[in-house]
């Protein structure tokens, strides 16, 4: 297929390469032109604007950061929609508010186009290996038609329902993760304040009901005080606030989510962009006056 690709950051670039390896013809645009170079070297066509991408491609994949960016790139002047023909499909892989997705999708449908909200999870490793989980919202027959694209990007590809429901699923995922991260941090602080080594507790808990992938990975990072590798806390921070904005507009009470958001705010206030989400442990420790320089 003729596939447009906009947003070639640490997630987008390997995803675009996987599409090329899958035999698709790529049309790329990026705000920072130098990020298009590896793709152009691999045979992609560089476009002058999102509008030109829209004019060339049947389907356009977006991997940009915020809801505002998506709106700009799709509906703004020189945006994808201004160049695209009716029947064009936009696949938005960013994590943005469900409301924004629904609004953009409605606008596009009025012009005879479709948009599938397709947020992913699995991080850079999943993007490189083509093993992302993709949660899709939007028109079901369009979803079926886009399978050749999805299959190059991910492994678990699920249609969640109407437009916005992919973003809702991703929001549920992020809400669950951030609350669990703080839960793990609290358990660790509780053990430490009682003078008990967490390692054997972690081993005991992994085998029981409290066991999870998160406890395995983040528990280990917290014990080893590996706070800079892995998943940037800034992304969880952004995502939990998307969740809380949605809770505000849908009048949903999410007390644990709100509490975790506050912990992430506190982390962001401490050179936030450096940290992995495991560093939430430091926030929880500091609340109890436990110095983070201590040995765990």
């Amino acid at each position: 297929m003729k596939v447009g690709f906009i947003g070639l950051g640490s997630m987008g670039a390997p995803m675009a390469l996987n599409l090329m390896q899958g035999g698709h013809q790529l049309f790329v645009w990026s705000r920072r032109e130098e990020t298009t170079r590896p793709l152009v070297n691999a045979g992609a066509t560089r476009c002058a604007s999102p509008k030109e991408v829209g004019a060339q491609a049947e389907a356009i994949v977006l991997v940009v950061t915020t809801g505002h960016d998506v709106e700009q790139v799709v509906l703004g002047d020189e945006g994808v929609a201004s160049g695209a023909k009716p029947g064009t499909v936009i696949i938005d892989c960013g994590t943005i508010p469900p409301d924004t997705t629904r609004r953009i999708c409605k606008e596009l449908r009025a012009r005879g186009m479709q948009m599938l909200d397709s947020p992913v999870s699995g991080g850079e490793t999943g993007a490189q290996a083509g093993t992302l989980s993709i949660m899709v919202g939007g028109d079901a027959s369009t979803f079926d038609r886009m399978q050749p694209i999805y299959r190059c990007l991910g492994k678990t590809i699920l249609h969640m329902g109407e437009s916005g429901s992919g973003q809702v699923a991703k929001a549920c995922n992020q809400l669950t993760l951030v609350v669990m991260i703080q839960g793990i941090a609290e358990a660790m602080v509780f053990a430490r304040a009682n003078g008990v080594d967490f390692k054997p507790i972690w081993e005991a808990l992994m085998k029981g009901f409290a066991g999870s992938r998160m406890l395995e990975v983040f528990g280990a990072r917290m014990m080893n005080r590996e706070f800079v590798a892995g998943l940037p806390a800034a992304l969880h921070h952004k995502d939990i606030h998307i969740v809380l904005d949605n809770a505000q507009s849908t009048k949903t009470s999410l007390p644990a989510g709100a509490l975790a958001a506050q912990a992430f705010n506190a982390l962001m206030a401490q050179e936030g962009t450096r940290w992995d989400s495991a560093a939430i442990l430091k926030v929880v420790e500091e609340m109890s006056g436990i110095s983070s320089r201590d040995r765990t």
Partner: protein
Amino acid sequence: MRINVGFIGLGIMGRPMALNLLKAGHKLRVYARRVESMQPLIDAGAIACTSPADASHGSDVIITMVSDTPDVEQVVLGTQGVIAGAAKGSVVVDMSTISPVTAREIAETLAANGVEMLDAPVSGGDIGAIHGTLSIMVGGKPEVFARVKPLFEVMGKNIVHIGSNGAGQVAKGCNQILAGVTIEAIAEAMTLARKNGADAYQVREALLGGFANSKVLEIHGKRMLDRDFKPGFKARLHRKDLRIVMDTAAKMNISLQQAGLVAQHLNALVGRGLGEEDSSAIVKVIERASGMEGAQ
């Protein structure tokens, strides 16, 4: 090797645990406040006693399995308590879930009398007790743990020595924090999905494939969606265990925000008369707060 065991507390957990010890060939002296709860044990060959002190006479190991912190204090240190009957060199093994602070204090008092102590709280519920598959988290001296291990192996499967006295209770506290916070996280995520009109079953399905996966999402998440709240682990017991965690946190100045929040939600649930339901019924508290009562 036959061990002379005193067993105090023959409730829903203690009775099957004691029966398993008898079946494995150990000699039991039993005591329970209500005479009728001793009967099944007497039928199986145990000796009925008139007090905790009486059950401790001539026993190498004295196991207590009672409800709460004051009960253990009473049974072990009270008049006609274990301490009045236990021989020097014998071991008291408390398998109840109680305050780690009290566990350490009791251990000190016993040590002054030449009696050893292990705290060995369990998880796995009455089903684990009946089948001898409990998880047992043990605090106390390693050599004392080694002496009692043959008995633990009759009652449980996943047996971990965590550290010194009180460490088993700390591990159990960590377990209850993590289980509670994860249940809360999933209750909020499922509510967010439903309030947005998304198919919560599909959302759960998508989340099971990724980082948010956990045993709690698998089992409690399903209970929430199926509206099947028969226990499992009763909300009032989870509430009691988290009260112990929060009491410890207050005593030791540990800030545990998420655990505190979940404890409040369990209060709300028990306050609504739903304490006999599984703790996954926390979802009802979240739903009520979001005006979704009676939904589904």
